[in-house]
């Protein structure tokens, strides 16, 4: 029973980690929070849903298309919401993406209706026994896909020119520009990568709970953000660790205390971390620039 809760927590945590990586990458290059990231995840989920139901594509193809679609949405968000506000005060882009998140959520509600959609499932619910705990096919899918994507991301970040550019911008944007890095291109690519991961998380979570609904991005986005803050806001491994911690803690709370507290846990963790150690587990200390 306990092991099963841990496994459920790990699956949920991997999802938070995938979304959280997007927050971390974007905060890394821009120092800004992308409030509509949860909605990008929701759009990814719906793209996957449509591909599976309307076009009868296999899951892997739907997943790839969702990643591509979400990456494109991320690219657009950067182009329309962040680029014009590059020199504006910090709150401007924050409020702007907050507005975008509200618009996307409600637009999705108008387009797809506010009810929960689910896939016509084949009733064969495959589950494996793992040291006495149930391990479902969807959980295995989540673990393999998210692990694969994280490894791929590490490869991009540390073994490619783009990754080098992303890390350079995260360290010092002006210096990177002086070294000939095309800032706008790299930031757009960062948004595409982060959003693609979010889109993948959307499809995975949709398959896991077999539920797709327009407001699914709000809570997931906030929780993934909590995970990122827990990990240190700019750190990719931090986001992964934070996501997994949050997923496990949440599931254990829901199982052993009360399911009503499931959502509360995340926010209490968020406020505690921000208050006690805003730099998170792996984060660099926040220094006030004079």
């Amino acid at each position, binding site marked *: 029973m306990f092991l099963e809760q841990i496994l459920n927590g790990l699956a949920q945590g991997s999802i938070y980690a995938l979304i959280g990586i997007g927050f971390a990458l974007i905060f890394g290059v821009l120092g800004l929070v992308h409030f509509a990231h949860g909605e990008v995840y929701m759009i990814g989920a719906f793209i996957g849903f449509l591909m599976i139901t309307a076009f009868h594509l296999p899951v892997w193809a739907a997943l790839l298309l969702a990643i591509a679609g979400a990456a494109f949405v991320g690219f657009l968000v950067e182009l329309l919401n962040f680029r014009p506000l590059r020199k504006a005060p910090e709150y401007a882009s924050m*409020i*702007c993406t907050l507005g975008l998140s*509200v618009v996307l959520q409600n637009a999705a509600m108008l387009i797809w209706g506010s009810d929960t959609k689910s896939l016509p499932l084949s009733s064969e619910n495959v589950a494996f026994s793992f040291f006495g705990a149930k391990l479902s096919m969807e959980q295995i899918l989540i673990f393999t896909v998210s692990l694969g994507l994280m490894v791929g991301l590490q490869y991009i970040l540390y073994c490619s020119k783009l990754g080098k550019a992303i890390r350079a911008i995260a360290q010092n944007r002006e210096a990177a520009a002086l070294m000939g890095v095309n800032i706008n291109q790299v930031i757009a690519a960062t948004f595409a990568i982060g959003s693609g991961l979010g889109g993948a998380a959307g499809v995975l979570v949709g398959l896991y709970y077999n539920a797709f609904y327009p407001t699914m991005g709000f809570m997931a986005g906030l929780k993934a953000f909590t995970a990122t803050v827990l990990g240190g806001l700019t750190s990719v491994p931090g986001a992964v660790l934070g996501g997994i911690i949050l997923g496990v803690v949440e599931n254990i709370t829901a199982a052993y205390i009360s399911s009503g507290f499931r959502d*509360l846990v995340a*926010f209490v963790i968020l*406020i505690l971390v*921000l208050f006690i150690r*805003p730099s998170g587990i792996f984060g660099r200390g926040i220094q006030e620039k004079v």
Partner: protein
Amino acid sequence: MMNMSKSLLTSILRRIDEKEKSLYLLLLIAVAILPLASQSDYVLRIATLCGIYIVLALGLNLVTGYAGQMCLGWAAFYGIGAYTSALLVMRLHASFWLALPAAGLMAAFFGLLLGIPTMRLKNTYLAITTLGFGEIVRLILLNWTDLTRGSMGLPGIPSPSFFGIDLDGKLFYYYFIVVLVIVTLVTMARLVDSRLGRALQAIREDELAAKSMGIDTTRYKIVAFAIGAFFAGIAGSFFAHYSAYIDPHNFAFGESIAVLSMVILGGMRSLPGVVFGAVVLTLLPEVLREAAEYRMIVFGGILMLTMLLRPQGIFGGVQRKKVSLTPEAVGQGKQPLYQNRLPEKAG
């Protein structure tokens, strides 16, 4: 007492120049005779709603507009006020006239609590903390079913009575919210130019500079949160008794966004701007009746477009450029360090 209120009145009137004075007088008369001009309950209901949002938005404006502290959980204070007042009256049979200030004070207390993190957190971090706070309050209202009945809400919140006369008429609520709006407006207008208001503006412009001028920035920020929240709590109490039914859904994230949109559309730190924003955004969904489902899209779109096109809002003054303290910028004298009036001897 008479003298004091008279001098207060003259001091307020002196601040308003002649042209504006007649404009305000006209507005006041229009507001006063509105119920006579239109007999419809609907118009009165919308006008009362406008009043509630004006009080809410003016409170938030003190925190976000003047002190520059982003708050994405404003509905929490509104909800705390509403539930405090409703529960006091329903469970403890307290009088509304006691519950109303109690609701304000309770919200102010939570404002103090939320103000404390502003010691260490800024900008994005603060925004997220306030968002988290808003969600925590909503989830507690939803899950503490023994006290709040959770999602079933609190029905049958009684109307106030005055010396045994039940005041449940729509006219009473209308004139009462008008009085509340006027009290809030006058308080804010007085606060903004006071020592507190100037200290808050100094903090917004440059916190480090304000601190080195001797302003106790933490204390002022916390006080701003408490005062703003007090008014949100009052609005909440009014709303609870006016609508006679509340549930946690009334105080969700969307409501925080709505109030923030009002402040931002009209222009942060412009009192007429905030009133304008609150009225327009309350009327808009009513005017576009068939487009009611677009309400939130409109709010979101307004937030986006305002930021992209006119970040200072419709009534906001010219946005001050970011001050750069590099020797070049200062030396060339291109950027005046402070455009706003700063307190001569603050803190």
